[in-house]
């Protein structure tokens, strides 16, 4: 019970000061039926070393990415995070601070969020960005809801291969969403609030925005672009012609962490700001006229508008956004672009090597860091067989298709090992 500072003497003194005989007297309002009898059926408290041992044993049952060749992406990417990032976000003043509702004593967090918003706006080619969202999938759903509020329309079309989880979350949260391809969307369809386009799409193909923009204009719909590998924005053109750009920024600053916490981002045009979900930090001055930052436009939010709020969100991924901001600060213009080029180069190396493996065909014409290969055997069983050999091969799509990714973590030796093992398995 090392986290509890009260001593028995202090507890006694407090009971006396309150004027009750025991703690039970403070629980008098709880009906007898609801008071737990006896002890709870859970293990007793453990020392720090014992907890470390128990949880380390669990961790050791997992195959970590660093333990062997790794080619799995599909919306969550294995990247290197500079040492400084984790040191900065573990500083008590950032790590253990509260939501910056008291700006006089939260300028550190507020300034960092303002920088985060600026980075996201610059990367997406949009005017403004919010202080972050739960993850890419929920950010995508919020974008669809915002497009519905902006247009007063009830339909949402997903226009290309969207990450299946994003699609699942969208279906759960938005009524009236449907999946169509570019060819099947007629330019006289009414009541379409937005078309959602992922770039690169789930199968790794980069997207040309111009034709989607034209289609949205013809429909009077908003164009929502989803990015789930933010590093791609260092090489591909910015989706500046979109109305809303949302997605996942885990690749910068965050570990894969078995799927969370990750970092959703959300950017749009200035004129939509009052319909935007999530927190926003703005610049202002204090009583002495000094530049300062503060949470702003709160009138959109649930604590003021309650049932009329733009969304029920009352948080952001504060620490994850800070990790992103520190990592982006370290990368800078040159580093970020170089990171994108290295990722693309490694994917190219992987594609060239896989193309030479008997029974493997590279499907994509174009890609950023991820693409599809067609195998001569069902991909799910290939993935399992390679996992048994210590290689995490990729994401098994239907049938014989396999989605593979490379990043700056991918070495030539990893690619060799992968190709050799694949040759054997496909024999």
């Amino acid at each position, binding site marked *: 019970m090392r986290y509890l500072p009260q001593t028995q003497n202090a507890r006694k003194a407090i009971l006396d000061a309150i004027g009750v005989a025991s703690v039970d007297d403070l629980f008098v309002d709880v009906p007898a039926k609801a008071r737990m009898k006896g002890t709870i059926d859970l293990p007793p408290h453990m020392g720090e070393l014992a907890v470390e041992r128990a949880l380390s044993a669990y961790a050791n049952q997992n195959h970590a990415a660093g333990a062997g060749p790794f080619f799995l992406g599909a919306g969550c990417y294995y990247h290197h995070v500079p040492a400084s990032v984790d040191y900065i976000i573990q500083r008590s003043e950032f790590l253990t601070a509260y939501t910056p509702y008291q700006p006089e004593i939260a300028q550190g967090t507020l300034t960092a969020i303002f920088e985060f918003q600026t980075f996201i706006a610059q990367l997406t080619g949009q005017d403004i960005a919010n202080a972050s969202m739960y993850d890419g999938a929920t950010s995508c759903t919020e974008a669809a809801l915002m497009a519905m509020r902006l247009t007063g329309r009830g339909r949402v079309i997903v226009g290309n291969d969207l990450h299946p989880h994003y699609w699942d979350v969208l279906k759960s949260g938005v009524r009236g969403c449907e999946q169509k391809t570019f060819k099947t969307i007629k330019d006289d369809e009414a009541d379409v609030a937005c078309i959602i386009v992922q770039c690169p799409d789930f199968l790794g193909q980069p997207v040309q925005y111009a034709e989607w923009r034209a289609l949205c204009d013809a429909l009077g719909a908003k164009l929502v672009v989803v990015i789930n590998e933010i590093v791609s924005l260092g*090489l591909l053109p910015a989706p500046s012609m979109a109305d809303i750009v949302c997605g996942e920024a885990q690749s910068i600053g965050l570990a894969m962490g078995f799927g969370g916490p990750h970092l959703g981002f959300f950017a749009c045009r200035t004129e939509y700001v009052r319909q935007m979900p999530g927190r926003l930090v703005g610049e202002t001055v204090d009583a002495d006229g000094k530049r300062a930052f503060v949470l702003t436009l709160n009138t959109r939010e649930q604590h003021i508008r309650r049932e009329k709020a733009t969304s029920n969100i009352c*948080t952001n991924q504060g620490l994850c956004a800070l990790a992103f901001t520190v990592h982006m600060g370290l990368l800078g213009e040159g580093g970020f672009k170089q990171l994108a080029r290295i990722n693309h180069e490694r994917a190219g190396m992987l594609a060239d090597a896989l193309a030479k493996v008997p029974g493997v065909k590279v499907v994509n014409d174009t890609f950023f860091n991820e693409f599809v290969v067609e195998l001569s055997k069902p991909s799910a069983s290939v993935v399992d067989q390679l996992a048994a050999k210590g290689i995490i091969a990729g994401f098994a799509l239907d049938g014989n298709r396999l989605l593979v990714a490379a990043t700056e973590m991918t070495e030539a030796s990893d690619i060799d090992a992968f190709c050799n093992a694949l040759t054997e398995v496909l024999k």
Partner: protein
Amino acid sequence: MSAERKIESQVSTMMAKELNGGSRGLHYEESLLWEKERSDHSGVDFPQVKNFKNRTGQTERGDIGLPQVSEPQVVRHFVRLSTLNYSIDSGFFPLGSCTMKHNPRLNERMARLPGFAHVHPLQPQQTIQGALRVMHDLQHWLATLTGLPGVCLSPAAGAHGELAGVMTIRRAHEQKGNAHKTVMLIPDSAHGTNPATAAMCGYTIRVIPTKETGRMSVEAFKEALGDGHDVAGMMVTNPNTCGLFEREIVEIADLLHKAGAYFYCDGANFNALVGRVRPADFGVDVMHINLHKTFSTPHGGGGPGSGPICVTNELAPYMPVPTVVKQGETYVLETEDMRPTTLGRLKGFHGQFGMHIRALAYMMSHGGDGLRQVSEDAVLNANYILSQLKDVYNVPFDGPCMHECLLTEKVQKEKGVSTLDIAKALVEYGFHPMTVYFPLVVQGAMLIEPTETESKDSLDRFIGVMRHIADMVETGQGDELHEYPRSTPRRRLDEVKAARFPKLRWTKE
């Protein structure tokens, strides 16, 4: 100008420059990354790409406009920014309903073990048995502590858990042919997220007024329920946002169930009950748990959090996917194919797994015995503060409080000092303020939650400052409080300007 004067003037110009980018004492002034001197290389060294060939099918991106600085500049920038923050490691955060408690660093270390940090959510399940086991164990702890056997860990925050819970209720009614149930009952003291969530799920909100006791009464509830035909459920925070346990909750829950409606409990105040009271025992059908509050994850200046839901066996088929189930000796993720009655997926991947590890590490450290002590100490501490301040501040409702106590500005307001002034005075005296102007049911609310991780000594210092502020008002020094805070990195901000002329990003002048 004489030579002497010239030198003097040069020196003062230098000093002015120094001050501009320097500091006074340890109060740093820090520019933005974009305003720093541009370095000719970045803070990360990369290898050169050897045979770069663009296979994207698109032209390479041009200038983005990002800053470029070296590693020492970046580290200093963020360290200097950090010193402008108040945090739980530097002092007391008596924030009602927010449960700001000590953050054990063991939890951080556990979440960073490579076997947890560097695993991918879509790896073959035989390679992630340890991670699934963490989730399964956590589900067991939460089910035991709430008495609600169905647990879904995927919601990303408390408000997201609310959404998951209310959507579970909606899904159950849909599947049972109860489309006529379109109303959600919510007390007027509820968190703002409750009505926002219910509205997002398409429900009409019917408000239950708080009685003069600070609680719902059976009569007020009956009136809101009517014949119950159109009522889908009720969202209640218990203990409520006035810091009080709803005395008549068992009767209310029975009436609700008789009307075919479900009882949703907002779990924000679970810290008052953990290990001592199981919500299922007072009639709850579904509740979310703020893992970051009750089971401690650092708040991180705004998140991430984690808001799993716990539900009855009746509602379990409808809750979101995925959950972890055990098949023989193997842990597997229960997906939509395995449980077609589910409302579907609410978040990418499996939830905030990093928080699942932290919560489990915290639970194991406390154990069942320690968690019971948590709620006892939390309640003890809140009642201590109440008992020591009730003679100088207005206490709107009688009786012992649970883990937070409610005061109002009433006495001080008569002398021109508001809740906001008291909050800013606390800042000046080195404390984070309490939650202010919430709950809305009393004017000028001050909601104080000390948590179990404050010692008596720490509480006494807070009580001392609160009494000092009351004394200043009493002795006619109230005007001074309007000027507070004075010694902080920034003084009171012009929030109107920020909202009227929104400047939400840095741009080149």
